[in-house]
């Protein structure tokens, strides 16, 4: 049995006896040990995965009640808590932290008999676009290991791309699911804010981030969304998913749908010409599928990167305050310090990007600066949201390239934070407005993947996945050259 199958194919193969969970997990673990030294997708591996697979096979054999995922190997970004396992956030600050509870998405997947094969790499506390800021070393892009896999959910994308699992859960604060999906030729979905519970996801910028699936196929993302979405008493920001089946009718097509091409994301100086031409070929594909295409201007997009970084650093500064190394963290003796000097020293273990964002996050809400930065950014966010909602009165979907540039080489942007931040220009709008967006693999240019981004109105994931599926079916892309 090939590892290069979709989630739906995996389920039917286990169901009809073509393979067993144990066989598939064993092969998956082999694959991981074969590629890890080169790709470094994982931070920790589930040592009990084989036992769990055997238990699931036994249930199948005895015809006992079984969850819908039949032992499917799924990797989890290491900022999502799994009980009794390490949740490091790829930070030295949490290198020894063991979570005593499951994130809601984790307990939901466990209850469907998924096997959580391991915890995967990320930029420290999910801050970055290249997974270069992991305290445990970067992950490599399976398409070309000289190139970054994108971020911050780089480990998620690498593990899915390298067939080290069927699917992965990442988190998307400003594009952290969609960006690595695009860079690794995968599907990445950022759901509507509140559709998926964040309980157990270590907060970076809690008012805009969501957990989302990274998969090889659009239908797999739909399947996972079926199992992870919905209201959660442990997260006051969750909304009712109305028990939608995102997978049913996924092949409905987009005949007659209205699609807006976001002008500010698909033109201009920052856009790579190869990405641009690929994007227009995608527009052409949509047209052939029967959609009506029109350009739409969202002039607030110009201000989204600044808005995003003001809001996220302010929230990050507050969210990361709890890491004072007193209740959990890494070993550091208390003797010889008073409280202030102790925690200031302990917090030196944050990496440079996190430190930078926390200093920014100290500025923007502070007494002298709040009016100039934080308040303005909140209001721009509101204006942007009004503009996007207005556009959705006219259009079913809004599209753009997922990332304005091709995957880049390691070290290329690491010393220029602003250039790095500009890579987020097309993805942050979905986070700032709360609407869902998906990245669909579309072309490979000189061995480097290019993804197309589709936005839909809030809670219109079902439609969104139908559009993504329609686009996917116009392509015939190879897997990563392992």
């Amino acid at each position, binding site marked *: 049995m090939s590892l290069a199958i979709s989630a739906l194919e995996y389920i039917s193969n286990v169901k009809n006896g073509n393979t067993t969970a144990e066989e598939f997990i064993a092969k998956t673990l082999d694959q991981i040990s074969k590629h890890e030294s080169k790709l470094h997708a994982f931070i920790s591996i589930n040592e009990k995965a084989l036992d769990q697979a055997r238990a699931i096979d036994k249930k199948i054999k005895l015809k006992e009640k079984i969850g819908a995922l039949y032992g499917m190997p799924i990797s989890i970004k290491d*900022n*999502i*808590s799994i009980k009794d396992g390490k*949740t490091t*956030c790829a930070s030295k600050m*949490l290198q020894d*932290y063991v*979570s*005593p*509870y499951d*994130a809601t998405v984790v307990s939901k997947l466990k209850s469907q008999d998924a096997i959580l094969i391991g915890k995967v790499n990320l930029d420290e506390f999910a801050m970055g676009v290249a997974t270069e800021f992991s305290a445990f070393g970067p992950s490599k892009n399976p398409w070309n290991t000289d190139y970054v896999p994108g971020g911050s959910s780089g480990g998620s994308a690498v593990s899915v791309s390298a067939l080290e699992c069927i699917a992965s859960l990442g988190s998307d604060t400003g594009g952290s699911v969609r960006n690595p999906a695009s860079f690794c030729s995968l599907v990445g979905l950022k759901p509507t804010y509140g559709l998926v519970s*964040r*309980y*157990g*996801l*270590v*907060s970076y910028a*809690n*008012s*805009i981030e969501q957990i989302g699936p990274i998969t090889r196929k659009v239908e797999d993302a739909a399947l996972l969304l079926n199992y992870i979405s919905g209201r959660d*008493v*442990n*997260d*006051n*920001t969750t909304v009712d998913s109305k028990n939608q089946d995102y997978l049913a009718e996924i092949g409905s097509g987009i005949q007659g749908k209205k699609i807006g091409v976001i002008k500010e994301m698909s033109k201009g100086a920052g856009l790579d010409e190869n990405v641009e031409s690929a994007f227009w070929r995608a527009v052409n594909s949509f047209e052939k599928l029967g959609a009506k295409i029109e350009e739409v201007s969202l002039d607030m997009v110009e201000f989204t990167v600044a808005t995003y970084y003001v809001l996220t650093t*302010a*929230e990050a*500064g*507050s969210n990361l*305050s*709890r890491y*004072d190394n*007193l*209740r*959990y963290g890494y070993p550091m003796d*208390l003797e010889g310090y008073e*409280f*202030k000097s102790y*925690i200031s020293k302990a917090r030196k273990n944050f990496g440079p990007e996190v430190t930078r964002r926390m200093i920014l996050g*100290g500025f923007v*809400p*502070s*007494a002298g600066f*709040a009016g100039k930065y*934080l308040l303005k950014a*909140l209001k721009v966010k509101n204006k942007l949201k009004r503009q996007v909602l207005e556009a959705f009165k006219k259009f079913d979907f809004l599209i753009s390239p997922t990332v304005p540039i091709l995957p880049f080489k390691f070290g290329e942007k690491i010393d220029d934070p602003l250039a790095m931040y500009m890579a987020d220009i097309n993805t942050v709008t979905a986070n700032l407005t709360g609407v869902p967006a998906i990245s669909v693999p579309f072309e490979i240019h000189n061995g480097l993947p290019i993804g197309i981004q589709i936005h839909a109105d809030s809670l219109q994931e079902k439609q969104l996945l139908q559009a993504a599926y329609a686009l996917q079916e116009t392509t015939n892309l190879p897997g990563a050259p392992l």
Partner: protein
Amino acid sequence: MIGLEIHCQLTNLQSKLFCSCKANYREFEPNTNLCPVCIGLPGSLPKLNRKAVEKATMIAMALNCKTPQRLGFFRKNYFYPDSPKNFQITQLNMYGPTSIGEQGNVSIEGKDIRIRRIQLEEDPGRLIYEGASERTQITLVDYNRAGTPLVEIVTEPDLDNPRQVRIFLNILSDLLENLGVSDPTLEGAMRADVNVSIEGGLRVEVKNIGSFHDLEKAIHFELTRQQSLAKRGIPVAQETRHWDDKRKITISSRSKEEDEDYRYILEGDIPWVILDSQSMEKWKNSMPESISSKKERYITKYGIPTQVADVLSSDKYYSDLFEQAHTESNAKEIANMITTDLMGLVDTREKREQSKLRPKHLSDLIEIINNGKVTRSSAKNALQKIVKTGKSVSEIVSQTGLAKISDEGELAKIITEILSQEPTAVQQAKENSQAINYLVGKVMQKTKGTADPALTLRILKEKIST
């Protein structure tokens, strides 16, 4: 001028403000009333307690505050070991009115004390300092209290002196108890910071005051300190001072500017709560009758004297007893029995908790007094036994011989005996009619209060005059 910031725990709730751990942390060993939320573990999120919103809103209504259309929460960011997240989830009106109440007032002695703002927030954990010297000192933290629902009430600087502060706090404490939201007698359930300023001086805030008793002392100290500075022409600086519990003085905190910059941001994990008018109306209607309304009713409806009505209405325990025990006809007597006979028996929290007295006991007692079965003084004795044992009134009366001695022959026998033992008193009574009361007392003593007082007096008078 004195302003207060009073922190009051909503002790009558079952669970904490943002998680399902127990609100009453007092019964736990250190750090055993915890969950990922209140200890602030990575990935945990606050989940707001609906009842806390309801109870805090009732406080705002009872203090005549305006309530907002939407309730918003904010993060107050500061590093301290008792704060598991290094920020406190609290409220303020940074982006319009979103805290649970504002612009209220409380009337004391005919003066209006304005309430600036009321906010719903979480209590931090508790710090304990250990170590012989400053050098070897370590800090121990118990997070059981972290996340306990707290209502902060901020007044305008409308109080004039420590006495007014005391009256204000008593009124507030009675009000909270009457609302059924808090038991202010529990240790740490009600705390206050104070700001003090004198004419022409700047505002000085005093923190860390452990008890209301010390609060008055701290205000005294600050007023005196500031006045003596003023006399010497030294301006009073605006600052935060700490109350030194051992030396009973205030000390400048020398806190740096950076400690005061709380970098308030929206708490995105808690959406703004729409306080719809239907719910507000429902809560308003379910609020217990206010103390002043009770008092008014006791006076006008039952003719209870003002002082008695005052005591009865301001103490929830007494007024609850009264409400359940009284009828149209016996109200005044029940009120008297509570405020004279019962008061000494249940004057502490422990005594009240242990008391087996039920409202029916009171109405039964009044009934047997009225139909002549026992004397008032016997009833008082019975009350003592009821509080201890909870036995029914009829049981107590029959078992302990408290039934009134109304038999003239029996009583005459007892009186004859006493008169023979008290020749001097008899002589005095013959000369001065007032002195007969001593002998009445002797009879009561002898009969443990069961003698019919009117009959006793008549027999005594007859015997002495003969």
